[in-house]
């Protein structure tokens, strides 16, 4: 009887570890040291907290917080970047969509400056999400003015 309970508990713990490692991929996430930067966007579209931050398609960080700056009425997006990926100070941030209907993420493109982004610094060059409605209205207005 002891043996069966022992096996039962061992398999149970094994199953939990399996779910943690294989399914949630715990080993390769989180633990990485990060630094924190912010960026202002005039429109973030459907960007959500925990959305990935990618550079050249590689995930380099996550969005940690999104709030509205009531001074300038722009979206203030906080981003945690992994320590091992330095970016220059004139890095540009763009809100992009993966696939046609996929989730939105922040794309980073490093600039030419030698100085790198530090913890707490701000990304100056940003471009907003593509909002379909404003795109269509712009198109219509252009057509009308022709």
């Amino acid at each position, binding site marked *: 009887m*002891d043996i069966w309970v022992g096996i039962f508990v061992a398999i149970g713990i094994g*199953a939990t570890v399996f779910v943690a490692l294989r399914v949630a991929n715990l080993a390769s996430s989180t633990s990485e040291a990060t630094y924190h930067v912010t960026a202002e966007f005039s429109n973030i579209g459907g960007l959500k907290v925990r959305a990935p931050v990618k550079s050249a398609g590689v995930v380099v960080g996550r969005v940690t917080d999104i709030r509205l700056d009531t001074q300038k009425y722009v979206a203030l997006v906080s981003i945690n970047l992994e320590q091992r990926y330095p970016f220059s100070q004139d890095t540009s941030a763009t809100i992009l969509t993966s696939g046609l209907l996929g989730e939105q993420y922040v794309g980073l493109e490093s600039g030419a400056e030698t100085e790198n982004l530090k913890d707490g610094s701000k990304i100056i060059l940003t471009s907003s999400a593509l909002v379909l409605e404003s795109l269509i209205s712009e198109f219509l207005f252009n057509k009308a003015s022709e």
Partner: protein
Amino acid sequence: MKAIIRVPALIGHYVNDRLWRLGFASRFLFMILIQSGTCLIRPRLVLREAYFIGVQSLIIILVSGMFVGLVLGLQMYDTLERFGSGEGVGTVVALALVRELGPVLSALLFASRAGTAVTAEIGLMKTTEQLSAMEMMAIEPVARVIAPRFWAGIISLPLLTSMFNVMGIFGGYLVGVLLLGVDEGIFWSQMQATVDFREDVLNGIIKSVVFAVAVILIAVFEGYNSPPTAEGVSSATTRAVVTSSLAILALDFVLTAFMFRGI
């Protein structure tokens, strides 16, 4: 005239009765916690119950988990394929199992497989006056009979839930990768990219611990509180299943509302 007085009296009696039972159950939980010292001194008592409650529920949990995963894989693939994202089947199966189906279904199965057995056993012990006999010998029945079953249940259900999840994901893998031809690498990598340890897995484990407390407390309480007759034991067993199933579903809604409200 009499009926006018009787209706509120009936309602009042009903409400009072329920409240009394709820209060008694809370005090019973408190009593179990106080009397749990014996389980620490004699862990073999818990071990024995873990065998009957946990190990013997293994087959039904594993087989159900497997079939839930298989069916979920088939259904989800069918729907996702319409949107051209059939590879997402692993993600959907894993998320559904880890967040909801795993904890809830294994708790429901556990309530009907182990909960009823515990209720019937304790009810019968009470009917045949074994509990009174223990008290006569200055052995506290709550410490000797109730607490070991309580703790065995709390240890067993989260472990069973994890096994249910693994079997379900394995079932989804069988259907998705082997039967429907989703690429194995995409199956796992999409799953790993979406399932978060703290957000999804840990919340699922918390759910299963809460369900374990609810199910096993209702089971031991109904058994301990059953009328000492054959009829009483049978109605207590029925009540244990019904109450714990409803408690699981209600608690699940509350926990989900707190955990996965979205942003």
